[in-house]
């Protein structure tokens, strides 16, 4: 009968308490009833035996656990990936990301292309900040050819790349709130992005996939419209600092990676400084490079910053 079936309460505090007490007493944890391998059927693939240890551990369901497919058509997965989520009640206890939905075989295409074509293929890899994607192969080709971009081009590159970084991170903040249900901040992010997109379209002719970098420099010189829009944006940027950031439904401000995300352990995981900083690691413990990294143009730019800005950077170091 249905009353015979014991479905464990996902927030079974007594069971967690028992596990804690057993651990404190030095006993082995209580043996859980063996789970049943669920295969892939429930998440859309044909059933077959597990191939790896991790697959077996993931797809074996104990009592009260369920596999939910958070498919590529989900606002928070952005059409890029599929998350097979193992839940116990409402608590997520394991995730298996399935990738490949946005993979376009760019590396394979680049095998058949000349270096000029490669620079256009890599543009849409991170379409929110295209110039970063072009910057890397441009520098790589310059190293291979032994050519050097003129200093003016290096300054334009640094300027344009930093603008790309600003509008990409600004959009990230908007999407961070959107993925958690807040519909408003993304509008502000897009306003900010639109101002910068206008100035980048003045300098490169494109609004999104800029195709701006060349081996040995950039495609167009900076023009008056670019500088005029840049100045106007910079004057207005400080006024936007007063806007409130993303909040959760109780009105508390959200910190990226603060209370909601998982935590990294102490062991190295191959993540950089920004992710660790988001976990709350102190800046003094984290190793860091200079403000602009190791590129020669960046070092020159850092020397050219006025002293007040340098002081400001030292007090509030970016990461």
């Amino acid at each position, binding site marked *: 009968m249905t009353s015979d079936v014991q479905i464990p309460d996902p927030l079974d505090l007594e069971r967690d308490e028992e596990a804690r007490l057993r651990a404190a007493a030095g006993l082995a944890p209580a043996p859980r009833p063996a789970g049943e391998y669920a295969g892939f059927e429930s998440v859309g693939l044909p059933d077959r035996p597990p191939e*790896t240890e991790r697959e077996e551990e993931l797809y074996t369901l104990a009592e009260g656990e369920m596999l939910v497919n958070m498919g590529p058509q989900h606002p928070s997965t952005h059409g890029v990936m599929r998350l097979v989520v193992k839940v116990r009640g409402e608590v997520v206890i394991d995730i298996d990301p399935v990738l*490949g939905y946005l993979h376009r075989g760019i590396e*394979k295409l680049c095998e058949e292309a000349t270096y000029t074509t490669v620079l256009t293929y890599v543009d849409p890899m991170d379409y929110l900040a295209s110039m970063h994607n072009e910057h890397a192969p441009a520098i790589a080709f310059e190293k291979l050819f*032994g*050519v050097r971009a003129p200093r003016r081009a290096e300054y334009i590159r640094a300027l344009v790349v930093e603008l790309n970084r600003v509008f990409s991170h600004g959009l990230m903040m908007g999407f961070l709130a959107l993925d958690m249900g807040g519909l408003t901040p993304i509008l502000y992010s897009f306003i900010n992005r639109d101002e910068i997109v206008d100035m980048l379209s003045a300098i490169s002719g494109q609004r999104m996939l800029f195709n701006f970098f060349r081996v040995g420099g950039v495609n167009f010189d900076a023009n008056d419209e670019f500088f005029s829009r840049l100045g106007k944006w910079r004057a207005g940027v400080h006024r936007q600092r007063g806007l409130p950031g993303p909040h959760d439904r109780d009105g508390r401000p959200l910190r990226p990676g603060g209370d909601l995300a998982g935590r990294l352990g102490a062991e190295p995981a191959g993540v*950089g400084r920004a992710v660790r900083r988001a976990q709350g690691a102190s800046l003094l413990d984290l190793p860091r490079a200079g403000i602009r990294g*190791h590129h020669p143009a960046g070092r020159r730019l850092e020397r050219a910053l006025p002293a007040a800005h340098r002081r400001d950077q030292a007090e509030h170091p970016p990461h």
Partner: protein
Amino acid sequence: MVRGDGHLHHLGWALQAQLQRGAGGGSGHAGGRLCARLSAAPGGTHLRHDPPPGARQAASRRVVDLRRPRGPASGLGRRRQLTAPARAGALVRLLLDRFPDLARSLWTDEDSVEVQIDGAAAPDLLQRLRDDPELTFWYLADAAAVDYGVDQHFEVVYHLYSDKHPAWLRIRARVDRGDPHIPTITHLWEGAMFHEREMYDMMGIIFDGNRDLRRIYMSPDYRSFPQRKDFLLPDDAADSPAAGVNPLERPETWDLTRLTDELAPGVIGHVKSET
């Protein structure tokens, strides 16, 4: 650009100074020309006033020659084996000090250092690079595979970063094509799991000890390794539900024997059909 005081501020100091000194200055300096190398004085080429070499250096500022690549770009593109330890950087000295048996497999150009090793030695070397208190290469930026050709080996390339020096380090671990096995490094860096799955999926390199070595982009029942140099698209078309809608997936597209001398005389040389 000319500002109020009438001087040309757009040009560099050296150029301004040279142009302002006026023409016909004698043999001591450039005489108002931009380039100090021209030795013909104005007014009489038969009267050569070659300045003494020392005086010319002292008198005029040399114009920067932008045609020759300078700085880090000047020697790049050629891999030089480390034969002059006196010119090696501090990182290379430290690596040689810690790993003396790597002296023959350490390569450097001006701004990057790389180590070429065999695949079996990779996790041990990476663990020592990460845990040594003077090296501290704590960040694994990338782990990727390279296929050098149909008859050649694979390489697994690891990029490590340490901000202590600060330095990037590249480790190239050679993997045989016939037996593509290499030990895993997921016990050192958790984040290497996805990189190793991608290398398995795309190249077919098997990571011994990896707990979750399955395909990451392609579907689990896929049979080829797409990033290999000998990957042929028509081989997979028969398995896919599309079954060759794309002309690149049809074997007849890749059949060069149909381009005979009747259709395209002299274009195709010796093409034999695969029978």
